[in-house]
């Protein structure tokens, strides 16, 4: 059977490709930010800030294209879910790029301070893990791989554990007098930035699930809420009518 709405499908594919490239820019920015922090690379920090402006511009352009497609093509079902998911993913990616800039700015604030090797080691691991999470999210998106998208949450718990380990190491270093309080606070914030990048990757995974099968993470909470309202003691399971949109 001949494909209907060929032009529209071509547009969706192009939007998907551009979103993948946007995510690729963030995957590239994460190790750059880590290097800026570990090598006190001020020039690299400047480069990241400039790159972020470009990512912002591309995000806006992509968002506008999605709105135009929604308005002019009246997509339904899977195509509508896909465009909605992409719109939300743009926000996750753009925010992650901002976080890499925040890391670079923190690096500028602690410029000239030597970091304890233990802290440097954990920063390096957090950077690697955040990049891997984002790369996995990109792969899941490009292949609509629901299993991989679901696995992102588990992968993220490793990054969360690293963040906790890092905070403990900061306290130890501060007690040992190898870093002062101001640097310790900046580093704690940096750890939070990495952790948030991981969370954004997990959110991308959830949007992939929504685009492919309509599942949304908020469904569980919404079902529990509805159960509470109706006095249902099944802990809200199953409640098929909630969230069954498109």
């Amino acid at each position, binding site marked *: 059977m001949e494909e209907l709405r060929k032009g529209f499908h071509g547009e969706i594919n192009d939007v998907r490709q551009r979103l993948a490239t946007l995510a690729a820019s963030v995957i*590239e920015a994460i190790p750059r930010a880590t290097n800026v922090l570990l090598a006190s690379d001020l020039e690299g920090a400047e480069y990241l800030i400039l790159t972020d402006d470009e990512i912002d511009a591309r995000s806006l352009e992509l968002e506008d294209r999605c709105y135009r497609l929604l308005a002019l093509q009246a997509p339904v079902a899977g195509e509508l879910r896909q465009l909605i998911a992409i719109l939300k993913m743009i926000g996750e990616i753009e925010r992650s790029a901002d976080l890499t800039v925040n890391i670079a700015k923190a690096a500028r604030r602690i410029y000239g301070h030597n970091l304890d090797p233990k802290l*440097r080691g954990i920063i390096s691991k957090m950077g690697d893990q955040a990049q891997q999470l984002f790369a996995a999210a990109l792969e899941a998106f490009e292949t609509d791989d629901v299993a991989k998208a679901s696995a992102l949450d588990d992968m993220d718990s490793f990054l969360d554990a690293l963040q906790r380990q890092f905070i403990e190491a900061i306290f130890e270093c501060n007690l040992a007098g190898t870093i002062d309080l101001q640097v310790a606070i900046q580093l704690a914030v940096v750890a939070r930035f990495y952790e948030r990048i991981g969370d954004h990757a997990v959110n991308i995974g959830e949007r992939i699930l929504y685009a492919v099968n309509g599942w949304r993470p908020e469904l569980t909470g919404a079902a529990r809420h509805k159960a509470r309202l109706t006095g249902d003691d099944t802990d809200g399971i199953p409640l098929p009518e909630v969230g069954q949109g498109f």
Partner: protein
Amino acid sequence: MAFVLGAMVAAAAASLLGALVRGRRSRATVGSVVAAQEAPANAADTPSGPDYEVVLNALPLGVVLATADGTVIFRNRVAVSVVGLRHVDLLVDAAVDRLIRQTLDTGEAKTERLELFGPPPRVLIVSTVELVARFCLAVIEDISERSRIDSVRTDFVANISHELKTPVGALSLLAETLQGETDPAVIAQLSSQMIKEAHRMSDTIDDLLELSKIELDAPLRQNNIDLAALVREAVERHSRAAAANGVTIATEVSDSRFVVTGDRTQLLSAVSNLIDNAIKYSEPEDTVSVRLYREPGKIVIAVDDEGIGIPPADLDRIFERFYRVDKARGRGTGGTGLGLSIVRHIMANHGGEVNVASQEGEGSSFRLILPMQIGDNQ
């Protein structure tokens, strides 16, 4: 060379384009395209040469052909996946697409250098040029290795200047100060500093000479070497320095015989260098472990420490001459910056290799790997 290659790519791409435009992509061959240019009417009957697509696929460059509206109609094998890392490939594709559009808009050839972090880091040159009938050709060249060699060379010159000029400068200044000095206490202090700088200079020259001797690939003194005894001797040599730093050396050598043929002095120097580094970069109460063991077909001497570790970005470069992880040379660990370079050359001379794994804050693990020689290793 790059220009000639570029011209050849452009010619091949133009010919392929001709064939594509005529709708004979699958039959676009050297013979047919040349014949097509000379006598288009008889092109199909000419003897076939290699397919142009095959020619372009054999190139180590990425080649992309696009139509006047920017639609890509051909990518060779390399251009499909330039690096093999999905996100890097996407960024390269985006750059190619952007340059193609710029070239089609302006009619001008464009070139852009892409420095991508990876990891591993990559440096690529993307060039675009307009072909006949407003088609556009993009060529992607991976110059990562060339760029790496350039930076090794530049850093080497800077580092060797630093290592040689610093002690000379210090000696000169100290001598000038000494010239007008009459206070015996100050004279003693200055001369002791001068002796220290002279020793530093002498160590660097000694290491440079040793390295050049090893690099010349001079015939090794071939002896049967009992590696267990050699490892114990190397550990013994450093036991005092280790104790002074509060570092424990744990040696693990099995009772089996580990015999290789080679130059005992060189191998002892390699193992000593690694133990020396491990002690220098450890903290008091840390343990340096030295192990000698067998793996299939090889004998391994492993030196592991719990020290400060090596940043990932420096791991590939620590075997370069005069390369320092601590660019400010702030740790004051001494050394000439040639030790690991010497180790690498010694291992190469013995048909072996040295490799390293490290995590900052957790420590480093160096492995000297020697090929097992049949017969004397039970």
